Protein backbone atom coordinates (compact mmCIF):
# COMPACT_ATOMS: atom_id res chain seq x y z
CA UNK A 1 0.00 0.00 0.00
CA UNK A 2 2.74 2.43 0.97
CA UNK A 3 4.50 1.65 -2.33
CA UNK A 4 1.43 2.78 -4.29
CA UNK A 5 1.13 5.87 -2.09
CA UNK A 6 4.79 6.70 -2.69
CA UNK A 7 4.37 6.25 -6.43
CA UNK A 8 1.36 8.59 -6.41
CA UNK A 9 3.34 11.23 -4.50
CA UNK A 10 6.26 10.84 -6.92
CA UNK A 11 4.04 11.10 -9.99
CA UNK A 12 1.72 13.89 -8.90
CA UNK A 13 3.75 16.03 -6.51
CA UNK A 14 7.48 16.11 -6.26
CA UNK A 15 9.41 15.16 -9.34
CA UNK A 16 6.21 14.72 -11.28
CA UNK A 17 3.29 16.92 -12.10
CA UNK A 18 3.29 19.79 -9.57
CA UNK A 19 7.05 20.40 -9.58
CA UNK A 20 7.36 20.20 -13.36
CA UNK A 21 4.32 22.41 -13.90
CA UNK A 22 5.64 25.15 -11.59
CA UNK A 23 9.15 24.95 -13.07
CA UNK A 24 7.78 24.89 -16.61
CA UNK A 25 5.47 27.86 -16.07
CA UNK A 26 8.31 29.87 -14.53
CA UNK A 27 10.46 29.00 -17.56
CA UNK A 28 7.67 30.26 -19.83
CA UNK A 29 7.71 33.48 -17.86
CA UNK A 30 11.48 33.81 -18.34
CA UNK A 31 10.95 33.19 -22.04
CA UNK A 32 8.23 35.85 -22.32
CA UNK A 33 10.12 38.36 -20.21
CA UNK A 34 13.39 37.96 -22.13
CA UNK A 35 11.49 38.15 -25.43
CA UNK A 36 9.83 41.37 -24.24
CA UNK A 37 13.14 42.89 -23.15
CA UNK A 38 14.72 41.98 -26.50
CA UNK A 39 11.88 43.88 -28.18
CA UNK A 40 12.31 46.87 -25.82
CA UNK A 41 9.06 46.12 -24.02
CA UNK A 42 8.47 45.76 -20.29
CA UNK A 43 6.93 42.30 -20.42
CA UNK A 44 4.52 40.45 -18.14
CA UNK A 45 4.80 40.10 -14.34
CA UNK A 46 6.17 36.83 -12.92
CA UNK A 47 2.77 35.29 -12.15
CA UNK A 48 1.55 35.74 -15.74
CA UNK A 49 1.69 32.07 -16.90
CA UNK A 50 -0.11 30.99 -13.71
CA UNK A 51 -2.83 33.61 -14.29
CA UNK A 52 -3.18 32.37 -17.88
CA UNK A 53 -3.75 28.78 -16.77
CA UNK A 54 -6.16 29.78 -13.96
CA UNK A 55 -8.13 31.96 -16.36
CA UNK A 56 -8.43 29.17 -18.94
CA UNK A 57 -9.56 26.71 -16.24
CA UNK A 58 -12.43 29.06 -15.38
CA UNK A 59 -13.55 29.62 -18.97
CA UNK A 60 -16.33 27.86 -20.81
CA UNK A 61 -15.20 24.90 -22.89
CA UNK A 62 -16.81 24.65 -26.31
CA UNK A 63 -16.80 21.28 -28.05
CA UNK A 64 -17.28 21.60 -31.81
CA UNK A 65 -20.45 20.14 -33.29
CA UNK A 66 -20.21 16.48 -34.23
CA UNK A 67 -17.08 15.83 -32.17
CA UNK A 68 -16.99 13.31 -29.32
CA UNK A 69 -16.52 15.41 -26.17
CA UNK A 70 -14.79 12.53 -24.40
CA UNK A 71 -12.15 12.20 -27.11
CA UNK A 72 -11.81 15.98 -27.43
CA UNK A 73 -10.95 16.31 -23.71
CA UNK A 74 -8.97 13.09 -23.32
CA UNK A 75 -6.45 13.90 -26.08
CA UNK A 76 -4.72 16.87 -24.35
CA UNK A 77 -4.60 14.91 -21.08
CA UNK A 78 -2.71 12.14 -22.92
CA UNK A 79 0.14 14.51 -23.74
CA UNK A 80 0.18 15.92 -20.21
CA UNK A 81 0.35 12.44 -18.67
CA UNK A 82 3.23 11.44 -20.97
CA UNK A 83 5.34 14.52 -20.28
CA UNK A 84 4.74 14.14 -16.53
CA UNK A 85 5.95 10.55 -16.76
CA UNK A 86 9.11 11.64 -18.62
CA UNK A 87 9.83 14.23 -15.94
CA UNK A 88 9.27 11.72 -13.15
CA UNK A 89 11.60 9.19 -14.81
CA UNK A 90 14.35 11.76 -15.39
CA UNK A 91 14.21 13.03 -11.80
CA UNK A 92 13.97 9.55 -10.31
CA UNK A 93 17.41 8.90 -11.83
CA UNK A 94 18.66 11.92 -9.88
CA UNK A 95 16.94 11.52 -6.51
CA UNK A 96 16.48 7.77 -6.28
CA UNK A 97 19.06 6.43 -8.71
CA UNK A 98 16.30 4.15 -10.01
CA UNK A 99 16.48 3.07 -13.62
CA UNK A 100 15.55 0.06 -15.71
CA UNK A 101 17.08 -1.36 -18.89
CA UNK A 102 16.15 0.76 -21.87
CA UNK A 103 14.58 3.65 -19.97
CA UNK A 104 16.33 6.00 -22.41
CA UNK A 105 14.29 4.40 -25.21
CA UNK A 106 11.09 4.78 -23.15
CA UNK A 107 11.87 8.45 -22.54
CA UNK A 108 12.48 9.00 -26.26
CA UNK A 109 9.14 7.37 -27.11
CA UNK A 110 7.23 9.32 -24.46
CA UNK A 111 8.74 12.61 -25.66
CA UNK A 112 6.86 12.18 -28.97
CA UNK A 113 3.50 11.62 -27.24
CA UNK A 114 2.74 15.36 -26.64
CA UNK A 115 3.27 15.98 -30.37
CA UNK A 116 1.02 13.02 -31.17
CA UNK A 117 -1.64 14.44 -28.85
CA UNK A 118 -1.43 17.74 -30.74
CA UNK A 119 -1.82 15.84 -34.03
CA UNK A 120 -4.84 13.91 -32.69
CA UNK A 121 -6.38 17.04 -31.18
CA UNK A 122 -6.02 18.88 -34.46
CA UNK A 123 -7.53 15.97 -36.36
CA UNK A 124 -10.69 15.63 -34.25
CA UNK A 125 -11.35 19.39 -34.30
CA UNK A 126 -13.14 19.37 -37.68
CA UNK A 127 -11.65 22.65 -38.80
CA UNK A 128 -9.76 23.21 -42.08
CA UNK A 129 -7.09 25.37 -40.42
CA UNK A 130 -6.52 22.84 -37.66
CA UNK A 131 -6.19 20.10 -40.31
CA UNK A 132 -3.55 22.22 -42.05
CA UNK A 133 -1.71 22.75 -38.75
CA UNK A 134 -1.94 19.04 -38.00
CA UNK A 135 -0.38 18.05 -41.31
CA UNK A 136 2.43 20.53 -40.69
CA UNK A 137 2.99 19.19 -37.17
CA UNK A 138 3.23 15.65 -38.57
CA UNK A 139 5.80 16.68 -41.19
CA UNK A 140 7.79 18.65 -38.63
CA UNK A 141 7.95 15.74 -36.19
CA UNK A 142 8.93 13.34 -38.96
CA UNK A 143 11.68 15.76 -39.99
CA UNK A 144 13.21 16.50 -36.62
CA UNK A 145 13.00 13.03 -35.05
CA UNK A 146 15.60 11.56 -37.43
CA UNK A 147 18.56 13.83 -36.51
CA UNK A 148 17.40 13.87 -32.86
CA UNK A 149 17.57 10.07 -32.64
CA UNK A 150 20.94 9.97 -34.43
CA UNK A 151 22.37 12.46 -31.94
CA UNK A 152 21.06 10.35 -29.06
CA UNK A 153 22.66 7.26 -30.68
CA UNK A 154 25.98 9.09 -30.50
CA UNK A 155 25.51 9.35 -26.74
CA UNK A 156 24.57 5.66 -26.49
CA UNK A 157 27.67 4.72 -28.48
CA UNK A 158 29.89 6.93 -26.32
CA UNK A 159 28.63 5.66 -22.98
CA UNK A 160 27.83 2.15 -24.20
CA UNK A 161 24.55 2.00 -22.37
CA UNK A 162 20.83 2.63 -22.73
CA UNK A 163 20.37 3.14 -18.99
CA UNK A 164 19.98 6.74 -17.84
CA UNK A 165 21.73 5.87 -14.57
CA UNK A 166 24.74 4.35 -16.37
CA UNK A 167 24.96 7.36 -18.69
CA UNK A 168 24.99 9.64 -15.64
CA UNK A 169 27.62 7.46 -13.92
CA UNK A 170 29.74 7.36 -17.08
CA UNK A 171 29.71 11.16 -17.14
CA UNK A 172 30.58 11.34 -13.43
CA UNK A 173 33.76 9.34 -14.06
CA UNK A 174 34.69 10.47 -17.62
CA UNK A 175 33.44 14.07 -17.67
CA UNK A 176 30.46 15.41 -19.58
CA UNK A 177 29.60 13.62 -22.82
CA UNK A 178 29.41 16.91 -24.73
CA UNK A 179 33.05 17.55 -23.75
CA UNK A 180 34.49 16.13 -27.00
CA UNK A 181 34.08 17.08 -30.64
CA UNK A 182 31.78 14.30 -31.87
CA UNK A 183 29.31 14.64 -29.01
CA UNK A 184 29.47 18.43 -29.08
CA UNK A 185 28.24 18.23 -32.68
CA UNK A 186 25.52 15.83 -31.55
CA UNK A 187 24.56 18.22 -28.76
CA UNK A 188 24.21 21.12 -31.21
CA UNK A 189 21.98 18.96 -33.42
CA UNK A 190 19.86 17.92 -30.43
CA UNK A 191 19.46 21.56 -29.37
CA UNK A 192 18.10 22.52 -32.82
CA UNK A 193 15.75 19.51 -32.77
CA UNK A 194 14.50 20.50 -29.30
CA UNK A 195 13.59 23.87 -30.78
CA UNK A 196 11.40 22.06 -33.31
CA UNK A 197 9.90 19.65 -30.77
CA UNK A 198 8.95 22.64 -28.61
CA UNK A 199 7.40 24.29 -31.66
CA UNK A 200 9.31 27.54 -31.21
CA UNK A 201 10.33 30.02 -33.90
CA UNK A 202 11.84 29.28 -36.48
CA UNK A 203 9.92 26.00 -36.32
CA UNK A 204 6.53 27.28 -35.08
CA UNK A 205 5.12 26.22 -38.43
CA UNK A 206 2.19 24.12 -37.05
CA UNK A 207 0.67 26.91 -34.93
CA UNK A 208 1.82 29.83 -37.10
CA UNK A 209 -0.38 32.55 -35.62
CA UNK A 210 -0.14 34.95 -38.53
CA UNK A 211 -1.26 32.51 -41.20
CA UNK A 212 -3.32 29.69 -39.67
CA UNK A 213 -4.22 31.40 -36.38
CA UNK A 214 -3.61 28.70 -33.78
CA UNK A 215 -3.22 25.64 -36.04
CA UNK A 216 -4.17 22.41 -34.24
CA UNK A 217 -5.36 24.33 -31.17
CA UNK A 218 -7.84 26.47 -33.07
CA UNK A 219 -11.01 24.82 -31.71
CA UNK A 220 -9.67 24.30 -28.20
CA UNK A 221 -10.93 26.61 -25.47
CA UNK A 222 -11.07 26.70 -21.69
CA UNK A 223 -9.68 23.83 -19.58
CA UNK A 224 -8.73 21.61 -22.56
CA UNK A 225 -6.61 24.42 -24.01
CA UNK A 226 -5.13 25.04 -20.56
CA UNK A 227 -3.91 21.43 -20.55
CA UNK A 228 -2.26 21.92 -23.95
CA UNK A 229 -0.63 25.14 -22.72
CA UNK A 230 0.59 23.43 -19.55
CA UNK A 231 2.03 20.55 -21.59
CA UNK A 232 3.96 23.02 -23.77
CA UNK A 233 5.24 24.82 -20.66
CA UNK A 234 6.33 21.54 -19.06
CA UNK A 235 8.15 20.51 -22.24
CA UNK A 236 10.17 23.72 -21.98
CA UNK A 237 11.45 22.39 -18.66
CA UNK A 238 11.66 18.65 -19.41
CA UNK A 239 13.51 18.78 -22.74
CA UNK A 240 16.47 20.86 -21.41
CA UNK A 241 16.60 18.56 -18.36
CA UNK A 242 16.80 15.60 -20.75
CA UNK A 243 19.62 17.27 -22.67
CA UNK A 244 21.50 17.99 -19.42
CA UNK A 245 21.05 14.38 -18.29
CA UNK A 246 22.48 12.82 -21.43
CA UNK A 247 24.90 15.49 -22.71
CA UNK A 248 26.00 17.91 -20.02
CA UNK A 249 27.16 15.68 -17.19
CA UNK A 250 23.85 14.64 -15.69
CA UNK A 251 22.14 16.18 -12.69
CA UNK A 252 23.33 15.89 -9.13
CA UNK A 253 21.46 17.41 -6.21
CA UNK A 254 23.64 16.16 -3.36
CA UNK A 255 25.35 19.48 -2.63
CA UNK A 256 24.32 23.12 -3.06
CA UNK A 257 27.21 23.56 -5.48
CA UNK A 258 25.90 20.86 -7.82
CA UNK A 259 22.38 22.32 -7.65
CA UNK A 260 23.92 25.63 -8.72
CA UNK A 261 25.64 23.88 -11.64
CA UNK A 262 22.33 22.35 -12.71
CA UNK A 263 20.58 25.74 -12.61
CA UNK A 264 23.46 27.30 -14.58
CA UNK A 265 23.31 24.61 -17.29
CA UNK A 266 19.52 24.87 -17.46
CA UNK A 267 19.63 28.66 -17.80
CA UNK A 268 22.27 28.37 -20.53
CA UNK A 269 20.15 25.97 -22.60
CA UNK A 270 17.02 28.09 -22.00
CA UNK A 271 18.86 31.24 -23.08
CA UNK A 272 20.08 29.51 -26.23
CA UNK A 273 16.51 28.44 -27.05
CA UNK A 274 15.14 31.94 -26.40
CA UNK A 275 17.85 33.62 -28.46
CA UNK A 276 17.31 31.26 -31.42
CA UNK A 277 13.59 31.99 -31.07
CA UNK A 278 14.02 35.75 -31.15
CA UNK A 279 16.59 36.10 -33.90
CA UNK A 280 15.07 33.94 -36.62
CA UNK A 281 12.09 34.25 -38.96
CA UNK A 282 9.70 31.35 -39.42
CA UNK A 283 10.59 28.77 -42.06
CA UNK A 284 8.13 27.20 -44.47
CA UNK A 285 7.39 23.53 -43.82
CA UNK A 286 9.29 22.37 -46.93
CA UNK A 287 12.29 24.47 -45.91
CA UNK A 288 12.17 22.97 -42.41
CA UNK A 289 12.04 19.41 -43.74
CA UNK A 290 14.90 20.11 -46.14
CA UNK A 291 16.88 21.69 -43.30
CA UNK A 292 16.41 18.74 -40.95
CA UNK A 293 16.89 15.95 -43.46
CA UNK A 294 19.74 17.83 -45.17
CA UNK A 295 22.42 19.71 -43.19
CA UNK A 296 21.26 18.73 -39.70
CA UNK A 297 21.14 14.99 -40.44
CA UNK A 298 24.51 15.20 -42.19
CA UNK A 299 26.08 16.89 -39.14
CA UNK A 300 24.47 14.27 -36.89
CA UNK A 301 25.85 11.46 -39.09
CA UNK A 302 29.32 13.06 -39.05
CA UNK A 303 29.12 13.14 -35.24
CA UNK A 304 28.09 9.47 -35.22
CA UNK A 305 30.93 8.49 -37.57
CA UNK A 306 33.54 10.46 -35.60
CA UNK A 307 32.32 8.63 -32.51
CA UNK A 308 32.43 5.29 -34.37
CA UNK A 309 36.02 5.65 -35.54
CA UNK A 310 36.90 6.85 -32.05
CA UNK A 311 38.03 10.42 -32.43
CA UNK A 312 38.94 11.49 -28.93
CA UNK A 313 39.22 15.25 -29.14
Amino acid sequence: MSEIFKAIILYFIFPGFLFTAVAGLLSTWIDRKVTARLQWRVGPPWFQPFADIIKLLGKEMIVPEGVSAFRFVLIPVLGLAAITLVSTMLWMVVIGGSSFTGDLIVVLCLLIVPSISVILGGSVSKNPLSALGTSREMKLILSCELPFLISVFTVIMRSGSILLVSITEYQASHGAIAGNLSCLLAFAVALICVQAILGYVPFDIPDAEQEIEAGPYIEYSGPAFAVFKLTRAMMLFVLPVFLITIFLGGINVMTWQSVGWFVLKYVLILTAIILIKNTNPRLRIDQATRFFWGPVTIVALIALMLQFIGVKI
Partner: protein
Amino acid sequence: MNLFKWGLRKAPAVFHAGASACNNCDIEILDLLTPRFDIERFGMTLAGSIRQADILLVTGVANRKIAKKLQQLYAQMPAPKVVAAIGSCACSGIIFRDSYNVGTPVDKIIPVNIYIPGCPPKPEAMIAALIKALNSL
Protein backbone atom coordinates in the same frame (compact mmCIF):
# COMPACT_ATOMS: atom_id res chain seq x y z
CA MET B 1 -15.13 31.76 -8.17
CA ASN B 2 -12.90 34.64 -7.13
CA LEU B 3 -9.68 32.96 -8.29
CA PHE B 4 -11.00 32.60 -11.85
CA LYS B 5 -12.05 36.24 -11.85
CA TRP B 6 -8.56 37.22 -10.73
CA GLY B 7 -7.14 35.16 -13.61
CA LEU B 8 -9.50 36.83 -16.07
CA ARG B 9 -8.44 40.27 -14.89
CA LYS B 10 -4.75 39.45 -15.01
CA ALA B 11 -4.60 37.50 -18.26
CA PRO B 12 -7.25 38.52 -20.78
CA ALA B 13 -6.78 37.48 -24.40
CA VAL B 14 -7.87 40.04 -26.95
CA PHE B 15 -9.45 39.19 -30.30
CA HIS B 16 -9.67 41.84 -32.94
CA ALA B 17 -12.70 41.89 -35.25
CA GLY B 18 -12.52 44.52 -37.97
CA ALA B 19 -16.17 45.05 -38.91
CA SER B 20 -15.67 47.16 -42.06
CA ALA B 21 -13.50 49.77 -40.37
CA CYS B 22 -11.35 52.31 -42.22
CA ASN B 23 -8.19 50.72 -40.64
CA ASN B 24 -7.50 53.77 -38.52
CA CYS B 25 -8.71 52.15 -35.28
CA ASP B 26 -7.02 48.89 -36.32
CA ILE B 27 -3.67 50.64 -36.56
CA GLU B 28 -4.20 52.14 -33.10
CA ILE B 29 -5.03 48.64 -31.76
CA LEU B 30 -1.75 47.37 -33.20
CA ASP B 31 -0.08 50.24 -31.36
CA LEU B 32 -1.11 48.55 -28.12
CA LEU B 33 1.35 45.75 -28.84
CA THR B 34 4.32 48.01 -29.56
CA PRO B 35 7.08 48.78 -27.03
CA ARG B 36 5.53 52.19 -26.33
CA PHE B 37 2.26 50.85 -24.88
CA ASP B 38 2.95 47.10 -24.44
CA ILE B 39 -0.34 45.64 -23.14
CA GLU B 40 1.54 42.46 -22.19
CA ARG B 41 2.45 44.42 -19.03
CA PHE B 42 -1.17 43.86 -17.99
CA GLY B 43 -1.08 40.28 -19.19
CA MET B 44 -3.14 40.98 -22.31
CA THR B 45 -2.18 38.99 -25.38
CA LEU B 46 -3.56 38.87 -28.89
CA ALA B 47 -5.47 35.61 -29.42
CA GLY B 48 -5.27 33.91 -32.80
CA SER B 49 -8.54 32.03 -32.44
CA ILE B 50 -11.86 33.36 -31.10
CA ARG B 51 -12.17 30.19 -28.98
CA GLN B 52 -9.30 31.43 -26.80
CA ALA B 53 -10.41 35.07 -26.56
CA ASP B 54 -11.88 36.92 -23.58
CA ILE B 55 -12.30 40.38 -25.07
CA LEU B 56 -13.75 41.04 -28.51
CA LEU B 57 -12.64 44.36 -29.96
CA VAL B 58 -15.06 45.57 -32.65
CA THR B 59 -14.01 48.39 -34.95
CA GLY B 60 -16.10 49.90 -37.74
CA VAL B 61 -19.82 50.37 -38.37
CA ALA B 62 -20.67 46.68 -38.91
CA ASN B 63 -22.69 47.00 -42.11
CA ARG B 64 -25.42 44.58 -43.28
CA LYS B 65 -22.91 42.13 -44.74
CA ILE B 66 -20.69 41.86 -41.65
CA ALA B 67 -23.51 41.89 -39.04
CA LYS B 68 -24.27 38.17 -39.42
CA LYS B 69 -20.58 37.28 -39.16
CA LEU B 70 -20.26 39.39 -36.02
CA GLN B 71 -23.15 37.50 -34.43
CA GLN B 72 -21.50 34.21 -35.37
CA LEU B 73 -18.22 35.37 -33.87
CA TYR B 74 -19.95 36.35 -30.64
CA ALA B 75 -21.67 32.97 -30.45
CA GLN B 76 -18.36 31.14 -31.01
CA MET B 77 -16.72 32.97 -28.11
CA PRO B 78 -16.51 31.08 -24.78
CA ALA B 79 -18.10 32.73 -21.73
CA PRO B 80 -17.37 34.99 -19.83
CA LYS B 81 -17.12 37.42 -22.74
CA VAL B 82 -16.43 41.13 -22.90
CA VAL B 83 -17.17 43.18 -26.01
CA ALA B 84 -15.55 46.55 -26.56
CA ALA B 85 -16.76 48.89 -29.30
CA ILE B 86 -13.68 50.79 -30.45
CA GLY B 87 -13.92 54.09 -32.29
CA SER B 88 -16.81 56.44 -32.94
CA CYS B 89 -18.08 54.27 -35.84
CA ALA B 90 -18.61 51.23 -33.63
CA CYS B 91 -20.02 53.37 -30.80
CA SER B 92 -22.61 55.36 -32.76
CA GLY B 93 -22.12 54.94 -36.49
CA ILE B 94 -21.49 58.72 -36.81
CA ILE B 95 -21.72 59.96 -40.40
CA PHE B 96 -22.36 56.46 -41.79
CA ARG B 97 -25.43 55.83 -39.69
CA ASP B 98 -27.91 56.81 -42.43
CA SER B 99 -25.98 55.02 -45.15
CA TYR B 100 -27.86 52.43 -47.25
CA ASN B 101 -25.55 49.58 -46.31
CA VAL B 102 -25.56 50.17 -42.54
CA GLY B 103 -28.44 48.30 -40.92
CA THR B 104 -28.20 48.48 -37.15
CA PRO B 105 -25.55 49.84 -34.78
CA VAL B 106 -23.05 47.39 -33.27
CA ASP B 107 -24.73 47.34 -29.85
CA LYS B 108 -28.02 46.17 -31.45
CA ILE B 109 -26.21 43.26 -33.14
CA ILE B 110 -24.27 41.98 -30.11
CA PRO B 111 -24.26 43.17 -26.49
CA VAL B 112 -21.48 45.71 -25.96
CA ASN B 113 -19.85 46.08 -22.53
CA ILE B 114 -17.75 49.15 -23.08
CA TYR B 115 -17.67 52.02 -25.59
CA ILE B 116 -14.41 53.73 -26.51
CA PRO B 117 -15.21 56.76 -28.72
CA GLY B 118 -12.63 58.65 -30.74
CA CYS B 119 -11.57 58.78 -34.36
CA PRO B 120 -9.38 56.85 -33.64
CA PRO B 121 -9.28 56.54 -29.82
CA LYS B 122 -5.87 56.90 -28.20
CA PRO B 123 -4.17 53.67 -27.12
CA GLU B 124 -4.10 55.02 -23.54
CA ALA B 125 -7.88 55.40 -23.68
CA MET B 126 -8.27 51.83 -24.89
CA ILE B 127 -6.04 50.44 -22.13
CA ALA B 128 -7.94 52.41 -19.46
CA ALA B 129 -11.30 51.27 -20.84
CA LEU B 130 -10.32 47.59 -21.07
CA ILE B 131 -9.02 47.62 -17.50
CA LYS B 132 -12.30 49.21 -16.34
CA ALA B 133 -14.35 46.65 -18.24
CA LEU B 134 -12.41 43.77 -16.68
CA ASN B 135 -12.66 45.22 -13.18
CA SER B 136 -16.44 45.58 -13.56
CA LEU B 137 -16.89 41.84 -14.26
